[in-house]
């Protein structure tokens, strides 16, 4: 655990250093740029609140991917599940008239239902026709993308809008905002605790984990892996759907074009960077949120173009993961060599 933390931090530091080198080569001032990055993401109440708020979809889709990968299913459908979840919450918010203390939980549940429904499609295709979820979820992402676009262009289109979007949802369904602090973070933290509990403390989570490690062993041990497969798909779909619902309820309060953006793919990336660990997903989710939030400041203060930041992010991901992994190997090898030398003398 401690070693993971240390190698993770060293990885991040190396990544920032390499980023600085690239900036120098390209003629940008790295110190100023990083100062802007952190000024806009961490230092100050608003930046911090923004980083937190933006981390919610990243972390939730990241958790979705982590739990799925660690339990076996290669659910890459977070982008689609997020969109369908968002659509469900939006439609609920458009037509339901309930007091806030009821409507907010109802919309949250609806978004989870939507996500689970969409991952459920992939699960059923696997169960009935043995179709690989790796491809089906990818295809379902595209289909969800076009489908929600259709939904916000025709049946739920806001007639007063200039681009495809729905009207705003019932204000009772808006997540409360206290000052700068958006309560979507609270929902996310709750979801984190629940899934952490389920995954690490519950019998079901134990079975998922073991199935993820070795499904034949799990089966022979009496675990019903087919049933668990479906459950994991549904749960992880629900997590991604929740991410979508919260995006709507916390932010624009409506479903508009471009809503999903890259959150869900970033979620997959975060899960892999965190090696499917739940706490790791939480931490790296925060880190990437800070990076993305701060990139706006980099752009604004130092005029470093946006695509350069994209390059920097890619380098960061690579260096963190490679650095961390290689560091582990290196440390182990060094210890081994040391030991061998001791023996030899």
């Amino acid at each position, binding site marked *: 655990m401690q070693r993971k933390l240390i190698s993770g931090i060293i990885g991040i530091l190396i990544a920032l250093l390499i980023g600085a080198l690239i900036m120098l080569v390209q003629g940008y001032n790295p110190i100023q740029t990083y100062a802007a990055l952190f000024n806009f993401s961490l230092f100050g109440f608003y930046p911090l609140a923004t980083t937190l708020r933006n981390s919610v979809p990243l972390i939730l889709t990241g958790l979705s991917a982590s739990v799925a990968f660690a339990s076996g299913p290669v659910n890459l459908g977070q982008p689609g599940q997020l969109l369908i979840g968002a659509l469900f919450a939006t439609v609920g918010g458009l037509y339901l008239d309930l007091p806030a203390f009821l409507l907010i939980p109802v919309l949250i549940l609806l978004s989870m239902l939507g996500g689970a429904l969409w991952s459920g499609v992939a699960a059923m295709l696997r169960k009935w*026709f043995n179709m690989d979820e790796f491809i089906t979820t990818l295809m379902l992402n595209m289909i969800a993308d076009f489908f929600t676009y259709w939904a916000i262009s025709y049946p739920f289109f806001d007639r007063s809008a200039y681009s495809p979007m729905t009207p705003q949802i019932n204000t009772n369904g808006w997540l409360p905002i206290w000052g700068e602090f958006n309560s979507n973070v609270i929902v996310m933290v709750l979801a984190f605790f629940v899934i952490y509990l389920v995954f690490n403390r519950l019998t079901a989570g134990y079975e998922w984990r073991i199935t993820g490690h070795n499904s034949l062993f799990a089966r022979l041990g009496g675990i019903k892996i087919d049933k668990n497969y479906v459950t994991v798909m549904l749960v992880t779909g629900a997590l991604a759907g929740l991410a979508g619902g919260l995006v709507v309820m916390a932010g624009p309060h409506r479903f508009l074009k471009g809503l999903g953006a890259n959150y869900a793919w970033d979620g997959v990336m975060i899960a892999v960077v965190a090696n499917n660990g739940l706490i790791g997903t939480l931490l790296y989710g925060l880190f990437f949120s800070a990076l993305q939030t701060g990139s706006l400041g980099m752009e604004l203060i130092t005029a470093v173009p946006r695509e350069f930041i994209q390059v*920097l992010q890619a380098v960061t991901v690579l260096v963190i993961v490679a650095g961390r992994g290689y560091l582990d190997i290196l440390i182990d090898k060094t210890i081994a060599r040391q030991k061998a030398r001791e023996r030899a003398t």
Partner: protein
Amino acid sequence: MNIITGLINGMISGATPILLAALGGTFTFYAGVFNIAMEGMMLTGAFFAVLGSYYFDSWLMGIVCAIIGSLMMALIFILFAVTLKTDEFVTGIALNLFALGATTYMMRQIFNVKGAFSNPGIVPIPRIHIPLLAKIPILGNILSGQNLIIYITVLVVILSAFIIFKTRFGLRLRAAGYNAPSLDSSGVSSAKIRIWSLIICGVLCGLAGAFLSLGYVTLFSENMSAGRGWISLAAVILVNGNPWGIALISLLFGFTDGLGLLLQQYMPSQFTSMVPYVATLIALYFYSIQARKRKA
């Protein structure tokens, strides 16, 4: 009639970049590399194709540069995934992100434009007219007059099938994917085989990129690979890497893509845009049914 020929020609040119990238992907697939970087390699290839063609006034240099560019991406992949043993999935995702950012950034730095760079100075890859084939009624329009890369692609399909299933390299390639320790123990370094497979993938994705930016259209635009690398990945996995199957799936995809546009008269465009992806699902369905039959 015209529309049908158009649809077929559309199918062929729509399939070509997917097919080339997927053939690259099939080499890495067999070598046991989980390679999702075709998208980024293709995009880089497309950019360097335009760069080469524009500066050297030659489409041939365009192709050469496309291959070099895409190879650089492959080398980064090799550095991280093979040498440093970084997770292949992360490497792929990061490389795709990197390619998108880097090509856009370079376009801004080198050509001083954003979005798209189109210029009469970019020399396109020529179409090849084959006098004999051109005379065949109806089919002549399809068999002759296609872009050079399309003919190359046909050759690559045949060559890939030959290399993978008939040659020494192919035997070792598949061995690397099936059981790398076994290959290592046989005295052949599986890491080297993986490296070669990535290099081949780089070359083919470079060609795919060159076709996109110098073959079908003559320009480079941001993100012009537009998800084709992912489709090619799906094609590879769908048919378990068989080059002929990949050709079929790519054609199917190219066909449904055009068909989707044609169907817009009858339903909302959002639904027609789904057609290729739904078709892929259906193809997967039939494939699974078949696989189940074979197993039973």
